[in-house]
């Protein structure tokens, strides 16, 4: 966190000194994003019934490579990109019928999504966007525990999707800063409990990201 704060500060301060965008970039770009995520309380199901997993906020990082559509593109203004993201969500507690127990360990999601964003642009360097992404995610239960006892482990590859929106600031023709929100979800990943039975859980998370894209 101490390393991230100066980066965010630098990005924000740069907005104060930058000039009006000259022209809209189109063509290829790459980018990097960092942020936080909150995995929603998840319904988890095994052979004996349902219980709840609650998580603490976690960190995430993304890398993207995409293509900005030209202004006169017939499909409209926007961009298409391939995004890899790693999200980590620390388990906070596990709630059974009798009560809640302290949890530990991380649930990690490595996702590869194809995103489509529509962009609203005018003469201002600011623009807003919204879009969707589809792809796959590898969910890994890194020895998640409850009161020191192993709850589940293993990994699962699932269909994943996200809905996103945000604002974008064109620092130059080739450099954009981006502050965005993502709702990330997937089909239910399955893990293995200590006794070998299967544990299936929901996965829906809220994500806030800050990053930059560089065109070339």
């Amino acid at each position, binding site marked *: 966190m101490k390393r991230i704060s100066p980066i965010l500060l630098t990005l924000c301060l740069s907005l104060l000194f930058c000039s009006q965008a000259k022209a809209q970039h189109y063509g290829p770009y790459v980018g990097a994003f960092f942020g936080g995520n909150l995995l929603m*309380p998840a319904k988890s199901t095994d052979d004996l019934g349902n219980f709840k997993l609650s998580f603490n906020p976690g960190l995430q990082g993304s890398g993207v490579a995409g293509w900005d559509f030209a202004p006169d593109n017939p499909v409209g203004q926007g961009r298409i990109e391939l995004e890899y993201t790693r999200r980590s969500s620390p388990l906070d507690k596990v709630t059974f019928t009798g009560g809640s*127990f302290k949890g530990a360990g991380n649930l990690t999601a490595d996702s590869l999504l194809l995103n489509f964003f529509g962009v609203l642009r005018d003469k201002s360097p600011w623009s807003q966007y919204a879009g969707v992404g589809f792809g796959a995610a590898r969910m890994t239960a890194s020895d998640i525990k409850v009161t020191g006892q192993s709850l589940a482990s293993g990994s699962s590859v699932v269909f994943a999707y996200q809905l996103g929106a945000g604002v974008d600031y064109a620092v130059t023709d080739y450099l954009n800063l981006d502050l965005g929100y993502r709702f990330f979800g997937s089909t239910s990943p399955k893990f293995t409990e200590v006794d070998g039975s299967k544990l299936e859980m929901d996965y829906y998370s809220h994500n806030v990201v800050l990053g930059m894209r560089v065109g070339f």
Partner: protein
Amino acid sequence: MINLLWSGLLTVLLLSGCGWSGTPTRGPEGIIPLSSIAIVPVSSTIAAGTSTTLTAIGYYAGVPSDITKLVTWSSGNTAAAAFNYTTAPNTNRVTGVAAGSAVITATVGGVSGTYPLTVSTATVTGMTITPANPSLASGLTQQFAVSGTFSNSTTQDLTFDATWGPTPGTYATVSNDPASKGLATALKAGVETITATFGGATPATTQLTVTSPILQSIAVTPANSSVAGFSKTVNFTATGTYSDGTTADVTNTATWASSNTSFATIVSTSGVATTVAAGTTSISATLGSITGKTNLTVTAPVLKTDGLQISPANSTMSLSSGTTQQFTLTATYTDNSTQTVTSISSWSITPASTIATVNTATGLVTATATGIVTIQASYLGQTVSTNLTITP
């Protein structure tokens, strides 16, 4: 496109954005080690010949969880107390065999809990059935309980241990099945004496008054019907289902209503609905506190080809005898029904001139000079016209 994406985003967030808020259905067993078991009896001392149920509470890292269904029960002295039932819901029921004491044990996963149960020599001296003298509609059920007073001044629930009657009676029957002891079912209107017998005490009795069956639900037919056209009638029927399983036509005794009379009205006493405009309304039939509903969807009527007729056709009007002329429009639908649609059509006049004007909503033409104009009326995508000659 952006609006569509925003709408989708908000929809998903509303549906799943707050996470699961349901109630867990399983305990921590199998995941968190069970540290201890506590046995909780309904009665710590029972009389010989009676029984009681036990609850097993498991402690997982200090958190209690009901594990009654998970444990295996045993008695350390079967001459005093024994578990005689192997099927749910009575596996946790222990019966006093003879006076003495027995250590009851509940075991699961290698962890056990114990409880010292005492079986006394007390004998039952009196019994009371609850509820006393209830009423019950034919076809419904009532759970009875019987409490016994014993010679040592204790009381004990004897619902399971007593023998119930009648099985069956003329007006009601009471179950002696271990899974439903004391559950009475009303058969037909009348008064039945319910009895509970145990030991040497005088049987306890109460009167169960069985009343006529009561209405449980109403079904409205035709269900979810669709009607094309306006001013059409639909005859709805309400069928009531009663507590004894019988059904009866309650069309003329129910009170009918339409949730949106802009689309269809209904006669409150007969269930005859009349369509008004395109849309969906909920048709309900209510009798007492019971309501049955169904939807009625009214769709726009379909005009026949050349289904509009304007009148008067190719008429002549004289300014000397008046300056206005009312036109009417009649629609003929594919089912050959007709409807005057003058006031719900769109009227126009061509060529637009100072000779005459038309009220676009009513079809009333006002002439101001001589000449010939064409009056047009449009309805449901069709247009019809006629000439009007205006003379001095």
